[in-house]
């Protein structure tokens, strides 16, 4: 937590400018790549079938700006109605 506070304090205190903008953009590019890696791994852990379909429905609902917490809870409730994982 202390490291996160220190990091946030550092980032918010740095003077705005092209160097900081470029660095943040670089981090954003890297995070996109890292999240893609995480997404690929997580998707591969979901078995083909209703659960993977649920992921796609959640993706569509998320793109339509449906409340994220609601999507997760409804996803869980739908899955409890499934006969098997």
């Amino acid at each position, binding site marked *: *937590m202390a490291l996160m506070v220190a990091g946030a304090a550092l980032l918010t205190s740095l003077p705005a400018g092209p160097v900081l903008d470029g660095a*943040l953009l670089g*981090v954003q590019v890297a*995070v996109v*790549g890292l*999240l893609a890696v995480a997404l690929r791994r997580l998707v591969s852990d979901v078995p083909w079938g209703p659960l993977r379909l649920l992921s796609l429905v*959640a993706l569509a609902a998320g793109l339509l700006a449906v409340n994220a917490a609601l999507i997760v809870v409804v996803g*869980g409730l739908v899955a*409890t109605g499934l006969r098997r994982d």
Partner: protein
Amino acid sequence: MTELFVRFLVIGTIAFGGGQAALPLVERLAVTDTGWLSSSQFAAGVGLAYITPGPVLILATYVGYVAFGLPGALVATAAVFTVPIALAASAAAVVARMERAAWFRRFGAGAAAAAIGLLGVTLFVLARPVVEVQPLLLFGAVVVFVAARRVPPMLLLVIAATTGGVLGAVLGAHP
């Protein structure tokens, strides 16, 4: 501040599937819904969460700090970990029994699957501004995607930040 506490309490309660699966909830809260953070600030926070020890949900500390300063960091951190810690510490037996229950496992699997879908939305939200600046930058994300199998995330983030900073200095604007 109350909204910060309540929202992170909810996120901590429904964060099935691990921290990365909870990232979309944090992104929706901090960027899309409230505008407390820009997408680049959020990405920087995710980067920090990757390179600091502990769960990715420590991102709550960052969001709280950027939005409301140190009090916000403390409130968000307390909120996001309250339910998991309470469940683990005071009701371990109950949780263990629930985890054996088929309905609870199915609920967790469904919630995690939904969260994975939402992670795709987060990826889209973070990639869109990059494309708007310069579509070719997505090639950098592909490089990271490929390199992540062999290179630690921390090193990739440092290289990306350094490269971006240098290009920003040289070009005097967004690379």
